[in-house]
């Protein structure tokens, strides 16, 4: 049963990846930030968040700008699948996602046309991490516009 559900999500993610990331709460950034600045922002986030296991930043088309592990394609697909499931839950685009499981916690946020996804240990400080992620995306978008 669980296997079937996974397949459905992946199929949906592949079909509508671009659509998912353009359904932003805020106006998308005019141009995407550079990969270097996205990587620097991600490194800064990792430094500030001791519970962080991994994270990724995606552009407005759902493309990976930076990912903390060596599997950018997986981050892209799995982030798309997460937002597909989240948007489908109430048929409205979500702004933030927080899922806590026994294995860890997942945070995702869409802001200024960009998307950030982070995975942490259990009992991470949710509001602090979401604040840092939102600030990070805001700074990246500001840099892209200037």
């Amino acid at each position, binding site marked *: 049963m*669980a296997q079937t*559900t*996974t397949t*459905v*999500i992946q199929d949906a993610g592949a079909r509508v990846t671009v659509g998912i990331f353009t359904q932003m*709460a805020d106006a998308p950034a005019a141009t995407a930030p550079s990969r270097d600045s996205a990587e620097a922002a991600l490194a800064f986030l990792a430094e500030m968040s001791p*519970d*962080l*296991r*991994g*994270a990724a930043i995606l552009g407005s088309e759902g493309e990976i700008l930076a990912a*903390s*592990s060596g*599997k950018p394609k*997986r*981050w892209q697909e*799995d*982030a798309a*699948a*997460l937002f*597909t*499931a*989240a948007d*489908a*839950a*109430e048929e*409205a*685009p*979500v*702004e*933030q*996602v*927080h*899922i*806590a*499981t*026994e*294995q*860890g916690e*997942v945070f995702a946020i869409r802001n200024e046309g960009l998307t950030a*996804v982070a*995975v942490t*240990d259990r*009992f991470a400080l949710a509001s602090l991490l979401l604040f840092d992620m939102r600030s990070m995306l805001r700074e990246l978008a500001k840099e892209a516009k200037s």
Partner: protein
Amino acid sequence: MPAKPHRVLLDRVSAYADEAAAFMRRRRVARRPFARLYYPNGRSADHAQDTRSGAELFVAAGRLIEVAGKRPKG
């Protein structure tokens, strides 16, 4: 003989710290997995694991946790 004032203060602080520690212990034990979605209008919604939408969210989260791997030590 009444206790010295600083002892009273220390005991009170210790009692509060013990309460807080016990609260955190209970929270760790009792906290169940959850999936919470936040919308642009400020609304938030919880989705239980045994619902269809909740199950899909947990599967998607599980895959992200898998790709993130374990936290590097040190």
